[in-house]
């Protein structure tokens, strides 16, 4: 699976596509594969604050609930309403099925996130 080079990644398997102060956030292909068929997404409210490392929502497969952790702090500017009716888009296209857009408070927050290479190494080690 191709992990976009322009994204940054977390150890909890979220990705962030950061352009200036606007961040688009989703979960990785590795995450959707581990979860199985996704049937429900609990989206945050537009306008609500998110905090780096804290839960901002959840994604549910048939068998389990999985919390989502924000890679940055900021304010939610948009949520992907499509995922309410077609959550399976995350399974078929995880790296384009964004979950929320955030106006980032401090861009330096993203400094400790993993690059594509670092994330790929990380998940390789996870499966051993």
């Amino acid at each position, binding site marked *: 699976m191709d992990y976009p080079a322009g994204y940054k990644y977390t150890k909890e398997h979220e990705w962030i596509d950061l352009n200036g102060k606007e961040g688009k956030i989703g979960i990785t292909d590795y995450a959707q*594969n*581990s979860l*199985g*068929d996704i*049937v*429900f997404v*609990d989206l945050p409210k537009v306008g609500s604050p998110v905090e780096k490392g804290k839960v901002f929502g*959840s994604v*549910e*497969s*048939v*068998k389990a*609930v999985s919390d989502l952790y924000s890679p940055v702090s900021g304010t939610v500017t948009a949520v992907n309403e499509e995922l*309410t009716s077609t959550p399976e888009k995350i399974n078929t296209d995880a790296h384009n099925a964004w979950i929320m857009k955030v106006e980032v408070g401090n861009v330096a927050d993203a400094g400790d996130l993993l690059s594509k290479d670092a994330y790929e190494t990380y998940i390789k080690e996870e*499966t*051993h």
Partner: protein
Amino acid sequence: MSTTAAPPALRKTALNATHRRLGAKMVDFGGWDMPVEYSGLIAEHMAVRTGVGVFDVSHMGDIQLRGPSSLAAVQHISMNDASKLKEGQAHYSALLYPNGTFVDDVIVHRLSENDYLLVINAGTREKDVNWVRKNLAGRPGVHVSDYSDYYTQLAIQGPKTVDVLRKLTDRDLDGIKNYWFTWGTVCGLHNTLIARTGYTGEDGFEIYVPSDQPTSERVWNEVLEAGKEFGILPCGLGARNTLRLEAAMALYGHEISDEINVFEAGLDRYAKLEKGDFVGRDALEAVRAAGGPKRKLVGLEITERGIARDGYAVLSPDGKKIGIVASGSPSPFLKKNIALAHLPMEFTAPGTEIAVEIRNQPVKAVVVPTPFYKRPKKQA
């Protein structure tokens, strides 16, 4: 993810390496390293509902009771009336504690007048065997054998099951009615037990073959090969759970347990109090004499957005906790979120509005009749 070896402490069926080779996601189920899904839970679930799927259920246990007193022995420990069984017939029953709660649920097969096979749950294997031995200790004329490790048990389930199995046996399958069984040659193996039983709410057969790895793998592969033209999928415990939930079938530790009695579980129609004494009978008689149980298992449909899961609190309309979800999940076939819960009698009428607490919020639900899903009647 599943190319690594199984953790050493978990038990494995003979097909463990086969499941891993197929890329199954594995899970610890009651101390067993089992496949939870292969190609995907929803695809596997739908294969069983519309075509055919195959499950490795070898982790389940098998107790055989033999001897001239074996019927009396079965009658003593099992709540259903085994004297009503004909040779080649099976029925659903349970082993009870003296207080009328469940040791386990069980399928009792009458192999002959003096020979009974009890198929029991994986998680309760040792407990059940010990309990049966203890309750039959000192009884002459009956011999108890634990054959759990002798069999690889495959469940082939779905409307196309007969199409698949008839390619592997020359036994007349149409002559075997639901919950009846026979023996025949399957995949070249003589005297294979072929039972029209299952845990999915669909038509299906369970076959019991020798548990050595080469035979088990060969039979598994032949079933998949025979089923290819019908779209057969190997199915894991994930789909097994969503299928049985749609059919409102009990899972030990959820709908039935040692804290839930037969009436509370809604299974009193399988307890034949009039047949004579059995372990737990007096306690059930007392419940009946008291006018019935104080709570009962009901089906719930979640009517607002949200998935009710095992252990979530069930709330009355004014927000009081009235029970917990015994089993809850999305229903892949019905495309609704469903659940089973034991609720106080005043909340058990279909149409009763209640709520389930999901992430600290009450989410509306309604009591519905069960089963949630019933398979279509066969066209002539």
